[in-house]
C-alpha cells in the first residue's frame, strides 16, 4: 500500500514537472529569432508561407500550444520539421538505444574501475598506489569530455592504426576512429565517457570509506583481529556505497543523456547530437519531444534509485524517501 502511494505521488509529481517543462520549452524556443525553415540561405517568402501553413505555424500561439498538449496527451510527439517526414518518436526510438548502449557500457566501466581503484586506494591509503590513483582521479575528473575524447581518438584510434600499418603494411584500424559497428568501435568512446564518472566514484568512495572506517564497529572488528582487507570488503564497503547511490541517479541520467560531445567526436549515431542540433535548427517539435523524453527518463531513473536505496538500506522507508528520514 505504501508502495502504491509512493508511486502515485511520483506520478503526480511527474505530470506537473512535465507540464511545466513543456510549457516553458514551448515559450522559450519560440523566442529565438528565425524559424525552422531559414537555413543558410534565405527562403522565398511565398514558399515560407506555404511551409508555415503546412506545420500550423500560421495559427495563433495559444492554438498551437493547445494542439501540442492535446497531441502529447495522446502520446503523439509530432513530426520533425527538419528531418522531413520522420516522426520525433521514430528518431528517438532509433537513436536512444545507441546512447543507452554507450551509456550503460560507460557506467559499467566507470563503476567497476571506480570501485576497484577506490578500494585499492583505501587499502593502501597514503602509500604510493593511493597517490598515483589520486592523481589519475584528479585528471579524470578535471579533463573535459571533448579533450578526453579527442586524445583517446588520436592515440588509441589514429596513432595505433598508423603504427600497425607501418609494421604490417596492411590498412587496418584496431579501434576505428568513427562509427558504431562492432565491439572495437565502442572501446574509445566508452572510455572517454566513463573517465569523468569513474573519477567521481573513486573520490566519493575514498571519502565515505574513510568515514566508515572510523566507525566504532570497524575499530571493533579490527580489534578482534580481522585483517584490513576483510574488514573493508565485508563490513565497510556496503555502508560506504550508500552515499554513492544517492548521487548515482543524476550521474546515470547525465551520462545517458549527456553524451553529445563524445557522440560527435566519434560520429556515434546516438541521441546526443539532437539535443544541440534541434535547438540550433529550431526544430520546434524535436526540441519539445526531447524535453518530454528527458523528463521521463530523469524521473524514471530517480524513482528507480529511490527504490534501490530502500532495498540496500532497510532503515530507509520508501514512502518518506523524499526527505531522507531514518
Amino acid at each position, binding site marked *: 500500500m505504501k508502495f502504491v502511494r509512493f508511486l502515485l505521488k511520483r506520478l503526480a509529481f511527474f505530470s506537473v514537472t512535465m507540464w511545466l517543462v513543456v510549457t516553458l520549452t514551448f515559450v522559450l524556443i519560440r523566442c529565438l529569432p*528565425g524559424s525552422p525553415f531559414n*537555413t543558410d540561405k534565405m527562403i522565398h517568402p511565398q514558399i515560407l508561407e506555404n511551409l508555415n501553413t*503546412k506545420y500550423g505555424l500560421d495559427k495563433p500561439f495559444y492554438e498551437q500550444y493547445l494542439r501540442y498538449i492535446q497531441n502529447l496527451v495522446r502520446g503523439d510527439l509530432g513530426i520533425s520539421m527538419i528531418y522531413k517526414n520522420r516522426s520525433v518518436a521514430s528518431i528517438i526510438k532509433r537513436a536512444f538505444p545507441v546512447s543507452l548502449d554507450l551509456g550503460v557500457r560507460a557506467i559499467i566501466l566507470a563503476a567497476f574501475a571506480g570501485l576497484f581503484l577506490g578500494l585499492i586506494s583505501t587499502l593502501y591509503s597514503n602509500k604510493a598506489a593511493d597517490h598515483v590513483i589520486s592523481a589519475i582521479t584528479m585528471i579524470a575528473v578535471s579533463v573535459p569530455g571533448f579533450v578526453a575524447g579527442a586524445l583517446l581518438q588520436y592515440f588509441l584510434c589514429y596513432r595505433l592504426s598508423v603504427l600497425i600499418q607501418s609494421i604490417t603494411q596492411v590498412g587496418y584500424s584496431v579501434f576505428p576512429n568513427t562509427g558504431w559497428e562492432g565491439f572495437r568501435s565502442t572501446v574509445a568512446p566508452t572510455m572517454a565517457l566513463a573517465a569523468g564518472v569513474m573519477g567521481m566514484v573513486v573520490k566519493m568512495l575514498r571519502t565515505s570509506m574513510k568515514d566508515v572506517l572510523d566507525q566504532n564497529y570497524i575499530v571493533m572488528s579490527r580489534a578482534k583481529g580481522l585483517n584490513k582487507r576483510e574488514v573493508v570488503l565485508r563490513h565497510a564497503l556496503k555502508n560506504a556505497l550508500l552515499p554513492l547511490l544517492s548521487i548515482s541517479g543524476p550521474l546515470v541520467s547525465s551520462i545517458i543523456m549527456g553524451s553529445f560531445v563524445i557522440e560527435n567526436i566519434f560520429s556515434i549515431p546516438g541521441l546526443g547530437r539532437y539535443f544541440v542540433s534541434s535547438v540550433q535548427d529550431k526544430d520546434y517539435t524535436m526540441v519539445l519531444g526531447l524535453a518530454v523524453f528527458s523528463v521521463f527518463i530523469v524521473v524514471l531513473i530517480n524513482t528507480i534509485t529511490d527504490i534501490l536505496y530502500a532495498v540496500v538500506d532497510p532503515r530507509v522507508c520508501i514512502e518518506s524517501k523524499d526527505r531522507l528520514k531514518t
Partner: protein
Amino acid sequence: MRLKRSHAFLLTVFICITLVLPGCKNVEADYNGICLNLGDEPLTLDPQLVFDVVPMRVINAVFEGLCRKDKEGMPVPGAAEHWEISEDKLTYTFYIRKDAKWYNGASVTAKDFKDAWMRALDPEPQYHEPAYMANLFFCIEGAEEYAYGEGKPEDVAIDAVDDRTLRVTLVQPTPYFLDLVCNSVYMPVNKEFFDQQISGDISEYGTEAETILGNGPFMVEKWNHDESIVLKKNNAYWNSDKISIEKIEFKMIKDNTAAVNSFKAGEIDMVEINDHLLADELKNSNCRVETYDAGIVQYITINNEDPVLCNVNIRKSLSYALDRKTLVEKVLNDGSKEAFGFVSPVVAGYEGKFRKQAGDLYKDNDKDTARKLLEKGLDELGLSEMPKITFLINDQEISKRDAQVLQDMWKKSLDVDVELQVMSFDAMTEKMLSKDYQMALLMWSADYNDPLAYLDIFSSNNFYNVAYYHNKQFEELLAESIEETDVKKRMDLLLKAEKIAIDDMAVCPLYFVANSYAVKSRVKGLVRGSSAIQDIDVYWTYVE
C-alpha cells in the same frame, strides 16, 4: 596446473587480440569501392524536398534527371536521349530513352517527370511539406501562379505527350533551362511507389533505404541513420557498362578532426581540408590534394538605403580601401581568388567564361582614391567625419576571422571605425529583411550556371535584394536580356548590367571561395563540381 599471474595476463591479451583481428577489413586490397565522408545525416533523400548539399551528394548518384552534368559541369543527356528546342526558345521537347529504368524494372516515363515537378510545385501537398526549391520551376508557364496558390495545376505548361515525350513551355527564353533540369528538384518520381510509402498523413518516401526508388547509376543498399549510407551499383541503369565502381560508402563524420584522423588511418578515401597546414602535411603522404572553385562569392551586402551608405562614393571608398590580395593569400591561403566582380569565374558566358570577358571591374588597395572618395562622399552628405558603421556577421569562425581583418583594413587605410556585431544567421536575416542594418557579410551561390543567377539579386523585385539597390538602367538591361534570344547579345547585356551594379558598388565583393580536399591516390576520376548537385560526382570514378 595453475597459471602464474603474469602468464594469465599475457594469455588474456593474446585472446583479446585474436578476437579483435579477424574483424580486419583490408582497405587497400582490390576492393572495388570507395568510402567518402558525407559530413552529416541527410534531412531526407526525397529529391523534391532537399535544398542543401549533403543529400544532393547522394541524390546525384541515386537519381537521374533529364540531363546530368558532365565533368566540366555542362548539361549532357541523362534520362532524356535528346531534345528539341523551338525557334522562339520557349518550348522544350524531351525524348526519354527507352532503356531508362527504375530499380524495380519499371520504365521511366514522361509522366514520372511531370508527377515529380507538379509535386514540387504543389503549394499544399498532402503527404509532405512544400518544396523549398519550387522557385527553380518558375520559368515554366503557370508554375509560379500555381506555387503561390493563385493558379490551377492544369495551367502549368508541363505536358506528358506520351510515355516518352515531355513538352515544357517556358515564360521567357531561358538559355540555362537545361542546366536547371540537372537539379535535384527536377528528378523524376515513381508515383506508384511513392503512394505505397504513405502511412497516416505522411509519406515515408526518401526516409529509409527501402523507401527510395531511384533511376540513377547507384542504388541505396543500406542507410544507417546518423552513421552511414551504402550505395551499390545499379545494373539496371542504362549506362551501367560505363560505371566502374561497385560500392560507395558514405560515412557521416561531422567533426572534421575526426574525419582527418579517419582519412590518415585509411578508413575513408577523401577528406575536406579547411586548413592550409593540413594540406601541406597531406601532400607528402599517399594522396592528392586538389582545389576547386566552389561557385560561391563571399561579399559584403550594403544597405543602399542607409543614410550614410546610400552615397555611392562612400560605398566605393569602403571597397577600394580593402586589400583583397592580403586577405586571400595571407589570411585564407586556401586557393580562394580575389573578387573584382560579382559573377563567379565558373559561370559560362558566350564562348568562354563570363568572368574572363567581364574582367576586373575595379582596383583595390588604392588608399589615395579611397580617401578622396570618402571625403567627396562626406561632403555630398554634409558630414564632417565618417560615423561609426555596424557590420553584421554570423557566428561562424571563418566569418569572424574575415570580418576582423576587414575591420582592421578600414581602420588603417581610411580611419573608419567599424563595429562588428556577431549573431545567428536567422537574426541577421531578420535584420536585413527589415532594412535594419548597414553592412553584413554574406555568401551567394547560384542554383544554375548563368550570370543571371548572380545578377538577379540586384533587381528591385527580387526577394534576395537585401542591398535594396535600385537602378533603372540596370533593370532595363536585365529585362532586355531576359527577352533576348540571341546568346551573344544577351551576354553583352549582362556584362553591361554587371558593370553598372559594381560601378555603383551595390555590394562589395570580397573573394571567390575555393574548396580543397585530399583524396587517396588509388581513387581516380572523382569529380567535385561547382554546383550543389555535383558537389561529389562518382560517375567516372574508378579505383586502381
